[in-house]
């Protein structure tokens, strides 16, 4: 852009806004309440990983964090929104930072998802245990649930990133 103003480019604003909305919408569409710590199971992680694998760590952090936190607020667990912002934001940031933008070898992508997912699981575990005063048994149970969610979400996100790259090649220009 000719005028390098203080604002980021309209392409970036539109892309980030849309990806954030999509993350929230996917979380909403695949929502299954999960006891016992008032959390819920969803495929929102697949969109976090998709954003970070395709558009880099910044998109992963913003779209993952804000999108999942928005979904939390809309789905009646506003209690979790601040922790979700940190947990999913770090998940997207770390996995995006490891895999780099648009590509990387398969094992690098898997490693990025694993490390990013670990950030999310641990953030939830410790925030539940230390701040939200959830009992250790329940927090550990949810940790297992979150790990399953990362594995499932990571698989779907990885497939999605590779499918969409083939189906919509002009995406790389966004």
């Amino acid at each position, binding site marked *: *852009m000719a*005028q390098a*103003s*203080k*604002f*980021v*480019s*309209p*392409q970036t*604003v*539109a*892309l*980030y*806004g*849309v*990806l*954030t*909305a*999509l993350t*929230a*919408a*996917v979380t*909403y*569409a*695949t929502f299954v*309440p999960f*006891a*016992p710590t*008032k959390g819920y199971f969803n*495929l929102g992680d*697949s*969109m976090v990983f*998709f954003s970070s694998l395709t558009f880099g760590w910044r998109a992963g952090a*913003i779209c993952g964090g*804000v*999108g999942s936190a*928005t979904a939390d*607020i*809309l*789905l*009646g*667990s*506003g*209690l979790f*929104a601040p922790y979700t912002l940190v947990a999913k934001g770090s998940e997207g940031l770390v996995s995006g930072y490891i895999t780099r933008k648009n590509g990387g070898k398969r094992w690098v992508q898997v490693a990025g998802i694993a490390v990013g997912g670990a950030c999310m699981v641990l953030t939830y575990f410790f925030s539940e245990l230390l701040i939200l005063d959830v*009992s250790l048994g*329940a927090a550990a*149970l949810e940790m297992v649930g979150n790990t399953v969610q990362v594995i*499932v*979400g990571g*698989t*779907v996100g990885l*497939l*999605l990133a590779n*499918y*969409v790259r083939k*189906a*919509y090649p002009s*995406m790389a220009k*966004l």
Partner: protein
Amino acid sequence: MTAFVDLYSEGDTFLHRLDPRVKMIAVLTLSLLAFILSGLTNLLCLLAFVFVLMALARAPWAKTYFAMKFVLRFMALIVIMWPLFDRSGTPVLASLGPIVITEPGVLNGLTSAVRVGCLAMVWYILIFTTAQRDLVRALVKMGVRFDFGLTLAITLRFFPSFSMVIASIMDAQRARGLDFSKGGLMKRSKNYVAVLAPAVVTSLRTAQALSLALLSRAYGARSDRTYLRELRMRPLDYVALAVVISLLVLPALAIYVLGMSL
């Protein structure tokens, strides 16, 4: 699936006229209040207060139902599940093999459920009574960068439409014979790739069109934006602000300075 466009509904109640910044601060203080209160009776009072505010917001029944559906489901889950994991305390109410249900466990579950109810409902009051453009304008006024505010506005605007896009793609794939309720967790989740891939492509196309629309409206041409309507605090807003802050500060003083247990 509920096909609503926006949880906000037009209205002319006290809560609608209140400055959005005051409402955001109210959400924050009421949430903190729900955290520092520990007695069941006090939390129930807070929940009743939140329900009164909810009634004042006069949201349409369908939207209230949408919100209550999630909140009540969570509260019921906590009440049922909490005693199973919290086996502290002595008065044992029932025991069946390894499952022991104690009185403090049940009470803790109830307390926690009411707290979660409060924390969830205050957000709905803000969302029900504040237009998205006001929310974003308030955030920008409070020092958030305009492009972040705009990104958030786009998110709130497109969340419902993408929800509908996903629902219709799911219907389309079901019509082609894709079954979402069969198989294990992994199989089921992989089926969702067939839904998410078209949804992602649709939304990326939307993003492209949106960036053209932003460009054509000279987004970013000047860094000093002006607004048609400025937010201004009126006397009533200051009164409301004082009330919500004292609602947090007075119980906090009683708990942490006077050492009362509320």
